């Protein structure tokens, strides 16, 4: 394949203006990724503070009030600051290159949706220094704890959620516009790479639910400052309604954080198994089914809230159904590996760990779906174990795998492979040491979000805390590896990078030129993701 030379194009501006004014999808993608890495380290430090306090029974480091602020900020920062922007960064870098487009469809909006984020999170972090402290009501901010009983900083929290929402909606609009309008001639929907497909569906989920989140925080704002009673029974409102609206946003949000991960893994496993993805069509159908089901399962987060029996049954059955398309995806990945010619470079190691550990998180999710049993699991560490298994070795591992997979294309330099493998093994051991024991302490009866616990939970909490430090500190290897690539330290990467890699992004130089596909690429020589030419 020939490389694409840039014509009629400007070189990047110099200095800070390049980053402030840029409308280039690659620059913006890089900024998103670096931003999310910084947020990951901040949110991770908060997790380590939490795990330090829980290392043994008793109050050692902090008061319960500050502990609650840490759990709240850790959740908000990881969900909205680390995982989501990392996926948006990858979408920026990869979607135009994968569909053969010169840039995102709406480059100025792209710039704005990134630059909103530092302000939103600057505001969130500033609440730590306000009188009364940061938000302390959990990332789910149930009313009336988050309204009548909230610290004054809740207003800043609400505004920053608004800003994050605006950023996400604009990002989603941009992804949809790009995918629908800017595909290279000949790339029909059923020839799109899986990452593009999963992001298209994710973007529709974002469009559908971010306004719901904005609505619910606005209702909170009204209750707090303008004496309405949306969530106050004394004024005719209903605190349970808050939970219904929140989870109508919250459950699709869960899939917003995992569908792009499915896409990434669906690129990496075929590459290192040297086989096309098994069941491309069923993957697309399964992803769409999961997205549809995500809108009708929200109240499984609320089984103990006192819903009528028929409501409980409906949400139990619909939730159990999600296991079917999710299972199809896992089976397809395993079938892709089966009879392949596998090698185990770092992206593949993280992807295999993703399949195994995400499946464990999915299976505990199936257990949680059984409503009668959920009365015993709800709001315990079993739930904490479940959602960390799908978010850390799930979403986060896929992001790490994706970074190792595409960073040679982004920087033009191969990362250090033995360091990458070392990073993988420490992360793999650390993540299981941290989160597996949480299943046990949850089943044994430890509620979540408590700063101190009864003595029978002590041993496993200590193991989890040790695991957390192992996992957290081993991410510094990842950071070092990334910085080395950015500083151009390492072997130069070829355009193809990986022997088995397929797709348009591998047809351009490494590093990818500042402008790619200014003329649409010819797809004749490209194998489509379905495995046919």
């Amino acid at each position, binding site marked *: 394949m020939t490389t694409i030379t840039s014509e009629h194009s400007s070189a990047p501006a110099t200095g800070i203006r390049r980053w402030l004014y840029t409308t280039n999808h690659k620059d913006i993608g890089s900024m998103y990724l670096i931003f999310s890495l910084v947020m990951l380290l901040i949110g991770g430090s908060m997790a380590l503070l939490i795990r330090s306090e829980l290392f043994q029974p008793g109050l050692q480091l902090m008061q319960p009030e500050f502990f609650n602020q840490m759990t709240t900020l850790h959740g908000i920062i990881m969900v909205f600051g680390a995982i989501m922007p990392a996926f948006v960064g990858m979408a920026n870098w990869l979607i135009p290159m994968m569909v053969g487009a010169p840039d995102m469809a709406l480059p100025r909006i792209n710039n704005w949706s990134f630059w909103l984020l530092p302000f939103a999170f600057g505001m969130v972090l500033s609440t730590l220094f306000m009188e009364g402290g940061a938000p302390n009501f959990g990332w789910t901010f149930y009313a009336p704890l988050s309204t009548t*009983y909230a610290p004054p900083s809740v207003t800043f929290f609400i505004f920053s959620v608004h800003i994050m929402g605006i950023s996400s909606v604009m990002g989603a609009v941009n992804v949809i516009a790009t995918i629908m309008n800017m595909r290279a001639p000949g790339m029909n929907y059923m020839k799109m790479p899986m990452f593009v497909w999963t992001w298209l569906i994710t973007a529709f989920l974002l469009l559908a639910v971010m306004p719901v989140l904005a609505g619910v925080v606005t209702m909170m704002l009204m209750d707090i400052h303008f004496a309405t009673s949306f969530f106050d*029974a004394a004024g005719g409102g209903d605190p349970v309604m808050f939970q219904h609206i929140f989870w109508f946003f919250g459950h699709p949000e869960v899939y917003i954080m995992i569908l792009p991960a499915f896409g990434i893994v669906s690129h990496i496993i075929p590459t290192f198994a040297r086989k096309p993805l098994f069941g491309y069509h069923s993957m697309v159908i399964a992803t769409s089914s999961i997205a549809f089901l995500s809108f009708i399962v929200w109240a499984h987060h609320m089984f103990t809230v006192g819903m009528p029996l028929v409501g409980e049954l409906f949400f139990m059955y619909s939730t159990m159904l999600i296991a079917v398309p999710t299972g199809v995806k896992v089976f397809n990945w395993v079938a892709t590996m089966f009879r392949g010619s596998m090698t185990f470079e770092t992206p593949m190691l993280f992807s295999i760990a993703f399949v*195994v550990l995400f499946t464990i998180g999915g299976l505990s999710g199936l257990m949680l779906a059984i409503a*009668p049993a959920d009365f015993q699991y709800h709001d315990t560490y079993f739930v904490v174990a479940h959602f960390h298994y799908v978010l850390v070795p799930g979403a986060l591992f896929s992001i790490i795998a994706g970074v190792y997979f595409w960073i040679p294309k982004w920087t033009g330099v191969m990362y250090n492979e033995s360091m990458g493998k070392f990073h993988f093994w420490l992360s793999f051991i650390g993540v299981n040491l941290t989160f597996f024991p949480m299943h046990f302490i949850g*089943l044994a009866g430890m509620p979540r979000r408590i*700063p101190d616990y009864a003595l029978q939970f002590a041993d496993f909490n200590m193991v989890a805390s040790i695991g957390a430090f192992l996992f957290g500190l081993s991410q510094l290897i990842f950071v070092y590896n990334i910085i080395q690539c950015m500083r151009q330290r390492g072997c130069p990467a070829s355009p193809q990078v990986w022997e088995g890699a397929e797709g348009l992004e591998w047809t351009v130089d490494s590093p990818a030129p500042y402008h790619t596909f200014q003329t649409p690429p010819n797809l004749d020589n490209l194998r489509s993701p379905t495995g046919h030419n």
Partner: protein
Amino acid sequence: MESILRHLRVNGFSIRLLILMAFTSFSHAEWGLNMTESATAIGREIHGLHMTIFYICVAIAVVVFGIMLYSIIRHRKSLGAEAKPFHESTVVEIIWTTIPLLILVAMAIPATKTLVAMYDTETSDIDIKVTGYQWKWRYEYLNTDVDFFSTLTTTQDQMHGLEPKSENYLLEVDKHLIIPINKKIRFLFTAQDVIHSWWVPELAVKKDAIPGFINESWAKVEVPGIYRGQCAELCGQGHGYMPIVVEAVSEEDYQAWLITQQQAQKSANQVSKLSFDELMAQGKTSYDKNCAACHQVTGTGIPPVFPALKGSAIALGDMQKHIDIVINGKAGSAMSAFGEQLTPTELAAIITYERNAWGNDKGDSIQPAEIVSFKQAQGQ
């Protein structure tokens, strides 16, 4: 190096399987690994469902990870494996869509049966109203006069490591919820301030207590004993400090307890005159137990959410206003109404203490009888 890594790779997955198998075999041992065994029939059904779905999950995991492990060991390029480019099979896709669906239907049937039984709160023998407060529980035995608060007894010194931790650290309260065995007890849940959740694992009852709403649940305990639980919904800084202790006793013991409880309730409201020193001594005890979580033992509070009492306008100002805020609380804030939570003697002692401790030295005091007349004047 390469061979060590390869060795490690294989081992990583065997370790994972070993952990899974260990989980299975330990699940019946008393290692605190599995769901608590229950003292109720419903609880045992739930435990059965939990074990069934768990074994199904383990079986699925063994099959899926087994095939994957086989591929990882056998189908590697370094062993000369060549990729077979098959990539589509509608038959296979239909099979692995249908089989999970059938398993799910098989699982949904017993789960539905148990859920229907859990929701049958009809024909109860005893009704108890449970109200969540920040951060204590109130139990009212309906159709009797019995009505009391149940508060954590673990001391601040134990939490801060100044004293050894007791056996039931953070799971002990001053007054147990006493219930008779083999009677259907219906619980009615509500809350005074924020949402709480009443959970006793061995009773298999967990239900949210929501301000302004009433939820129901029930339990019929078969084995006498003490069952401990905790609040399961984040309710503010004292969320970890409002445990539940249920004591299931025989019917005779329950009736006897009910009578003594009714008598004790009457005498608690009888008041006698106390000296200043007596008020201060009892005031410190009651303040540390009921007020210090927010206003702190030192009276300095956590401003601006929990104001300081040391040097405050209320503690140093008009006595009537001070009594009013303690008895009736402050609307729209975390300050709850203590008028019904505490006895007149405790209220008088706390108010006297707040006006004279930490260098406030206001010098005045109030008698329990004045609290009684204040409440009567308000029609309480």
